């Protein structure tokens, strides 16, 4: 080999660790062959555990889907073919790494690494400007909040900056990432913690805030660990001194309540109270944390700020659509080949994301769900829609924070809607009657429908209730909770009708509308199904008792001959 290995980077973010990266790291270290670096997530979660070998001629090669076996380790070290991995063309040509530029390329725990790659240049630039000029630059960039709402970030900053006489101003980074199925913020905090912190320091300088909170989900221990290390480094290098004004950075762990992602609820939680939202106005920038003017931005929003101050607003705005500038991170998951984290320019179409980048099968996809429990689904027919705040809204979905779940043809949309209502009705804080009782009633109706006990009259009632909950709720949780139901009713009414009129679930997912059947002609009497049935529903002559069967599918998965199948209940 003409080139030598300079170092090997091992992806040690949560997803890498879950896939077994720790073992690979240990095995590589034991070889003592070269520098082994721990790095963050490069977004190809489907290929974890993953390493990148960097050669002395500046080229590099990925190795992925690794197993803790010597032959893999040898292949990595010798430039072999086993485990070699190249990013597929569809993704390479569509993604644009700006916010995630350094993710998976540097050691998240190293301050020097971040600085050597252009880190804290933006802060230096900002400190050389007047605070108002910084606010203006952010305004000009057209950056909009990435936490879901899409409010102009520069505008929000100007509200806080305008509070010239406040005794104290507070800045909060919303790292609660409550949408189940989204992990952009986790990945960014784990992989490049300094980037978001740099954004916060710039915001603090521009707005005059001195107390900086990071409200992070407790489910993200690794993100918290990396943030703590990074904050210590900031203090050590005196970067918290913003032209003579010292700021304090405090991490607060959330305690597991979705509604605490809402800004007024989040503030209550920070104050040590129950996380219930309150009526706005007054907006937090007027009266927030213990009455002080307070501003909240999302992790990814802060992550974008250094780009603006480093390259200028115009360069930032050169990418994107008319009203949505820059790039957006999406957490791709569900029924597709390449789940993971992607960053794309605003205006990329759903089809490009789901098919080209995600590698989903065009014939197998039914819809995509964006915005989690507050969002809606978009059917495959509308996949030529460009992704930006406004286009998604017109379709009854929302951009949301960036969770994107691909739903395959074999999933039931009614059950999916029920799942979201199950989530929101439990997460409702209970303050508003419509949200507290209404979402529960919606959940009950949907449950009834999936059990085959629904009636056609349920459908208009469900819709009416959904619209009333949207009107009668105080905060974003209740106002958006009915969205998954309204969107599925808009695009997949046929599935609702199947359930209430014909009492069938075409996708064969609703347990009460299906039964398991054993095909005696395929059966080889190995008795594995009988052994594995937890409720003893299969008789000695291999007949499944539908009364006892709980449809746990254990027998189906165990059967070596695939003799057991799931069919509609009212089919003979």
């Amino acid at each position, binding site marked *: 080999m003409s080139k030598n290995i300079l170092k090997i980077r091992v992806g040690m973010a*949560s997803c890498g660790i879950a896939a077994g990266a720790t073992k690979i790291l240990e095995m590589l270290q034991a070889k003592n062959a070269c520098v082994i670096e721990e790095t963050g997530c490069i977004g190809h979660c*489907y290929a974890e555990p993953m390493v990148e070998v960097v050669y002395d001629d500046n080229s590099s090669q990925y190795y992925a889907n690794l197993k803790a076996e010597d032959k893999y380790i040898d292949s990595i070290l010798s430039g072999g073919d086993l485990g070699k991995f190249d990013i597929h063309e569809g993704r390479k040509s569509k993604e644009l790494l700006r916010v995630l530029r350094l993710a998976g390329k540097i050691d998240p725990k190293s301050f020097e690494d971040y600085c050597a790659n252009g880190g804290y240049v933006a802060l230096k630039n900002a400190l050389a400007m007047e605070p108002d000029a910084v606010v203006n630059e952010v305004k000009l960039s057209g950056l909009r909040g990435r936490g879901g709402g899409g409010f102009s970030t520069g505008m929000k900053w100007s509200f806080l900056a305008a509070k010239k006489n406040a005794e104290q101003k507070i800045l909060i980074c919303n790292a609660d990432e409550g949408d189940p199925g989204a992990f952009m913020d986790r990945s960014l905090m784990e992989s490049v913690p300094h980037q978001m912190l740099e954004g916060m320091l710039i915001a603090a300088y521009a707005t005059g805030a001195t107390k900086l909170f990071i409200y992070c989900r407790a489910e993200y221990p690794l993100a918290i660990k990396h943030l703590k290390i990074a904050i210590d480094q900031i203090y050590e290098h005196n970067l918290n001194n913003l032209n003579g004004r010292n700021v304090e950075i405090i991490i607060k762990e959330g*305690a597991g309540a979705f509604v605490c992602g809402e800004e007024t609820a989040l503030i209550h939680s920070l*104050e*040590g109270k129950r996380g219930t939202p309150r009526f706005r106005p007054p907006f937090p920038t007027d009266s927030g944390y213990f009455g002080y003017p307070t501003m909240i931005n999302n992790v990814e929003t802060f992550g974008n700020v250094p780009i603006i101050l480093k390259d200028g607003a115009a360069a930032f705005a050169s990418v994107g659509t008319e009203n949505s500038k820059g790039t957006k991170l999406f957490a791709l998951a569900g029924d597709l080949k390449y789940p993971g984290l992607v960053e794309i320019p605003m205006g990329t179409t759903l089809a490009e994301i789901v098919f080209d980048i995600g590698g989903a099968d065009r014939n197998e996809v039914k819809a995509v769900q964006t915005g989690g429990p507050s969002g809606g689904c978009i059917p495959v027919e509308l996949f030529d829609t460009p992704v930006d705040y406004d286009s998604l809204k017109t379709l009854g979905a929302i951009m949301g924070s960036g969770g994107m779940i691909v739903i395959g043809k074999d999933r039931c949309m009614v059950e999916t809607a029920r799942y979201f209502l199950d*989530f929101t009705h439990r997460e409702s804080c209970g303050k508003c009657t419509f949200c507290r009782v209404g979402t529960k009633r919606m959940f009950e109706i949907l449950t009834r429908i999936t059990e085959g006990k629904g009636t056609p009259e349920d459908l208009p009632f469900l819709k009416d209730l959904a619209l009333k909950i949207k009107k009668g709720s105080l905060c974003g949780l209740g106002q958006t909770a009915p969205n998954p139901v309204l969107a599925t009713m808009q695009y997949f009414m046929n599935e609702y009708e199947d359930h209430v009129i014909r009492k069938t679930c075409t996708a064969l997912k609703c347990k009460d509308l299906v039964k398991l059947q054993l095909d005696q002609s395929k059966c080889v009497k190995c008795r594995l199904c009988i052994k594995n049935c937890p409720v003893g529903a299969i008789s000695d002559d291999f007949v499944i008792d539908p009364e006892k069967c709980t449809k746990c599918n254990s027998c189906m998965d*165990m059967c070596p001959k695939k003799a057991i199948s799931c069919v509609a209940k009212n089919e003979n």
Partner: protein
Amino acid sequence: MGKKFDVLTKIENSPNNLIKGLQAIQASEGYVSDEAIEAVGEYFNISPVEVEGVLTFYSQFKRVKPGKYKIAVCDGTACHIKGSPLIQEWVKNELKVNVGETTADGLFSLESVACLGCCSLAPVMSINGRVYGKLDRKAPQKS
């Protein structure tokens, strides 16, 4: 206040640290007992009912003693789509335990959580904080 809840003294005694205090208790005890609620109330000078009000609002806090192995099956969107309800049922059957309960021998406790942030490996579960991904019917039995 008994020695048992000494962890509290490391936390600044101001009401906005109530949640932090409860988190510290849970980290050392594994759950928040009635006794702990009294102690927290006393420490922060808040009535026990108020402490309980805050405590029950957040799903992180446990009121029953968890098992030696804390199993959390993810039921976030990605995992749900990928069949987490079945995983949950299998674990339930295997260990004879319901969500939110601990087995009689105190070994296993089961909970359902919304998203562990590893959606691309869905369905996932975690055992004592270690995440296991890409589960199927056989995986839960092995561990």
